[in-house]
């Protein structure tokens, strides 16, 4: 029987409120605000209060899926990446590079965001990249 | 139990500013005359108190600080863009 509260930072918007994850017997049970954190001072918005649901959700993807004949089936990483690359090249060849748009988010790291914009601008060759915070 | 809840609620509503709009009366189905009297009296009382102060309440007075002319709130349009969607 174990009860730990692990401090962390909310993964949703760019504010970065302090969070405490309540872990009982190794399973994530609920989320509490960190009262002494300078950014949020013990207050959270509804997205922050429900972080634990997002982590344990049954809707989380656990394996790469590819759509065939209208149904999704599990596949390997290699097949998923090669299929997406084929689809991108086909679209760019048929309709030009400006037909592709990329949306990045505050939930992924700055390094991944940089990689996404490099991919959009250098590989696909378009300027159509935007961020969820602007919406 | 009903009388406990109603008494509590009457006191709470009086604190918020909605006093006197809730009334409890036990009337048997055989006491038709009493029913008519109570309903008429209560209707009179509510009429004299005026309409529900929350009806058509402008829930965004902070708008007056950023838009005193009222351009944004024209035609009662909501600032929340997904107003017309069934689900969010």
């Amino acid at each position: 029987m174990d009860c730990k509260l692990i401090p962390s930072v909310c993964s949703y918007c760019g504010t970065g409120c302090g969070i405490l994850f309540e872990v009982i017997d190794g399973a994530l049970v609920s989320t509490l605000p960190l009262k002494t954190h300078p950014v949020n001072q013990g207050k959270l918005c509804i997205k922050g209060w429900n972080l634990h649901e997002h982590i344990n959700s049954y809707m989380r993807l656990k394996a790469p899926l590819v759509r065939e004949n209208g149904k999704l089936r599990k596949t390997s990483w290699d097949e998923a990446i090669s299929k997406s690359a084929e689809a991108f090249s086909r679209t760019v060849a048929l309709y030009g590079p400006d037909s592709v748009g990329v949306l990045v988010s505050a939930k992924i790291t700055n390094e991944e965001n940089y990689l996404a914009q490099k991919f959009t601008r250098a590989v696909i060759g378009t300027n159509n990249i935007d961020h969820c915070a602007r919406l | 139990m009903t009388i406990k809840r109603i008494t509590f609620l009457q006191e709470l509503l009086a604190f918020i500013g909605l006093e006197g709009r809730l009334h409890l009366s036990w009337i048997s189905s055989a006491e038709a005359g009493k029913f008519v009297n109570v309903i008429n009296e209560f209707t009179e009382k509510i009429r004299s108190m005026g309409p529900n102060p929350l009806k058509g309440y402008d829930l965004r007075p902070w708008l007056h600080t950023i838009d005193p002319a009222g351009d944004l709130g024209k035609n009662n349009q909501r600032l929340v863009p997904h107003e017309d969607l069934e689900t969010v």
Partner: protein
Amino acid sequence: MESAKTVKQWLETGVVDIFLGYRLVEGHPVPHGYTRENLTEVEEMVTPEARYSLEKLATHLSSRHPEAKIGMFARDCSRRALNVLVIWNQLQGENIKTIDLNCCPSPLKKHAECSYLEPEEPGSYKLLGGIAKNAEIKETEARGQDERLSRWMYEMQKCIKCYGCRNICPVCFCRECSLEHPELVNPGRLPPEVPIFHLVHATHMAGRCVDCGLCEEACPMDIPLRLLYRKVNQIVSDVFDYDTGTSQEQSPFSVLGEKVTLTPKTLETS
């Protein structure tokens, strides 16, 4: 720390199976469960400088391990909350042991870490149109009905429906909360149906609220919730003669079929 010795002794002798104390993580005091397997961790226990609801952790633990004996630090408000939870069958009284902390002010200690006792100065707009957080009930009741309604609506419509007040409340334990029912509270729309939203929560807290103030601390919009709930407690104690937290009886709202001496108010047509 003095209490570290008591805690160690309790864990070793089996008086408690887990003790909810605090530890420092990068300068923040964070609640932590000390167990018999990790006795050396007890050395790092600190006095809490921030108020967390350890009773809520205890209810979560107790629902998974009903026979577990839980020890914890308890402030005055925590002791009242534990009392209420035992009366409402969320915790077993004999499985809880507390080390009492003196948090409310006493002759020896003027200042305490409590949101109510260290009020911040309200700004001028708040005083003009709304209600200050540390307002007194009598002061609010000296105003007329229209002014009261307008001031309460000014405060309540700021609500962003974060459910913080409900999530952090130590005596809130319903699995299906009415505030999340899609027919009663429209999902996805702001502001919520005020003043119904806050009044529903206040009514459900009648007989349970122990005036700990955690809800007001968790509200990002500075709504004076503590004033509302103190009024609820005053009504419960005046009309039903029931002191939430100190009384050992069941709450007046949970007992059916008893004889009541209240009579309904008569209709005055003015």
